[in-house]
């Protein structure tokens, strides 16, 4: 029960952080990505605020090698670099800049009742579904 409440709180803190940071305002995000125009560097500070905290947390837990409740960690590998990683990230970055929304902020904006965010989220879910259930089955069937 405690574990489930904490999981909900983790999502809540993540969302509140996104709101306060300015990440949920697409105009702000586009202002940050527009380095060749009138650049607003604010959102660089989101990473500067988040990464040191994440660094300390992961350092601690990777050393402990289990959760606080002594359950296994689910950590992805760090070194595998392939074409899919690069092409996927490039596609994601261009979509991010086009709308000023990435997955987390899009879901928070959806909760705020933005109808445009809803359109974006539906298209995003479709894109994910096409990759995981169609594209992967065709190109990675072996």
């Amino acid at each position, binding site marked *: 029960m405690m*574990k489930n409440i*904490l*999981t909900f*709180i*983790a999502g*809540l*803190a*993540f969302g*509140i*952080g996104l*709101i306060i*940071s300015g990440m949920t305002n697409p*105009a702000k995000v586009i202002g940050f*990505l527009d*380095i*060749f*125009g009138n650049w607003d560097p*604010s959102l660089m*500070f*989101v*990473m500067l605020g*988040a990464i*040191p*905290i*994440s*660094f300390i*947390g992961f350092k601690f837990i990777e050393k402990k090698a289990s959760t*606080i409740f002594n*359950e*296994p960690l689910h950590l992805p*590998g760090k070194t595998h*670099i392939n074409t899919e990683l*690069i*092409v*996927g*990230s*490039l*596609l*994601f*970055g*261009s*979509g*991010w*800049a*086009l709308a*000023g*929304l*990435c*997955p987390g902020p*899009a879901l*928070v904006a959806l909760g*705020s009742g933005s109808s445009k*965010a809803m359109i*974006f989220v539906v298209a*995003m*879910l*479709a*894109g994910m579904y096409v990759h*995981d*259930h169609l594209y992967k089955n065709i190109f990675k069937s072996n």
Partner: protein
Amino acid sequence: MSINWSEFNPITSLLGGGILGIGTIILILFRGRIAGISGIVGALMQFKNTPKDHHLWRILFLLGLVSSSLIYSLFLPFPSVNITTDFTSLILAGVLVGFGTRMGSGCTSGHGICGLGRLSPRSLVATLGFMGAGFITCYIFLHLIN
């Protein structure tokens, strides 16, 4: 290039970043999971041969995330969500973000915050990729075409 000082607010961005960093830590410390939003959402749409806890923790985390705007607006006015993109581009952007994050195994949260926090070379490559593509796309649409 010039700096838009009138919109520049590093303190709130730093504070927000710190709070979402804490969310990330809570999830890994108590649930052993990475706070990668695209991965969590994508895996939620899988139903074949999934382990017992596959859906529950993801639903709980996303419930927290989606309801954060409601809970925030109980105390403070919710900041504007200013989406200027037209309908067609919005659909295209959504599909690119959905497909791209699943192909590249992560987004700004999973690669940018968790991965870089773990000093993962894989996530560094991904982050440079989506940031670079973001800068170039903005340049094309805001300065080259217009």
